[in-house]
């Protein structure tokens, strides 16, 4: 079975609003869960900026202590 666009899956799982059309903006709790799965990984400043840009409400995320880019 060929994979479908991932946005459809994220909508079906309730991470994205079903009306979201263009930009994918991730919910804060999903980002926290993803960061909690890789505690030893240190993201560079550019990587942090890339992640922050894809978060719907970056100020609501409990970022790790070393995190510099807060949105």
């Amino acid at each position, binding site marked *: 079975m060929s994979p479908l666009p991932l946005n459809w899956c994220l909508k*079906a799982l*309730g991470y994205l609003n079903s009306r979201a059309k263009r*930009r994918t903006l*991730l919910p804060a709790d999903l980002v926290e869960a*993803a*960061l909690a799965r*890789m505690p030893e990984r240190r993201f*560079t400043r550019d990587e942090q900026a*890339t992640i922050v840009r894809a978060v719907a409400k970056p100020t609501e995320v409990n970022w790790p202590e070393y995190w510099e880019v807060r949105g």
Partner: protein
Amino acid sequence: MAKQPSVRSLKAGEEPEFDWEGLVLAPLHSSNGEMFSTADVLIRKRYKQAFDGDVRAARDMIKAARANAKARKSQQVTYNEWDDPLEQRRRRAKEREARLADPALLLLGIAAVDNEAFRNLGEPGEPGFAGRLARLRPTHLAQWVVDYAKSRSGHPARDLPYSMTGSVLPEDHPELSVWREAGDWLLAHLVRTRGPGATRFQEGISPNPSGRPRGRKTEPEDEDLPFDRFFSELTEIPAGGKLITVTRLDALIWKLMVEAGKGNDQLLNLLAPRMVDLVTLQWKSRVPTAIMEDYRG
């Protein structure tokens, strides 16, 4: 001396007096000082003759109107949205925006790229690598994302529909082996080329090197058409006991039809085979709606 009205506001058939002795000198002046070319004067004279019922002049004017319509059609540019450079730019921007979160999904381990897509990417330095990297989308969602969605407090998700189950793979799946081995290399490329730094303003580099794109032109300008300015001048004709304002072309066609209807057999013979053309010309003459309503009323 009473001031003469402008030629543009004359009643149809009432043409200005011209200084015919100065005909060889261009530009010509009418007696109230407006400038005209020789051709402009001659077509006004011929129009007056046609309006007065001269069949040969009427034939000439119909020829001129048809030549004008033909020139308009040949110069008309059909607008194709798909080929419009501005639309192309908007479409590309929209696609870019849709791909904006992809590097973040890969960085956070929410999504992954399967072996086939990874191998199709090729090596850096190969022709087309940059384009393929710019268009690369994550192919599969990680299994933990589905599990986490079901355990979320507040609004737990239901099972994914069957059509979407193919888009989810566990992280240790053999389909993702290349991603597990060389994922860091790809992520470094993605962050550099598609992260926020890639589109940041750089000093000394123009963000818009070729300048504003040229506007599009779909309608020919009046100056490009041989008789358009003359035929679209507004004139007054008596109709139904009052004066109505119409274009010269409409006035002529209306007058010729009335004359033919009254019993001018020569005019009738001229108009009858061209009736469809005449109605089409009148329809294409772009008369403002308010005037047309007046004309119909």
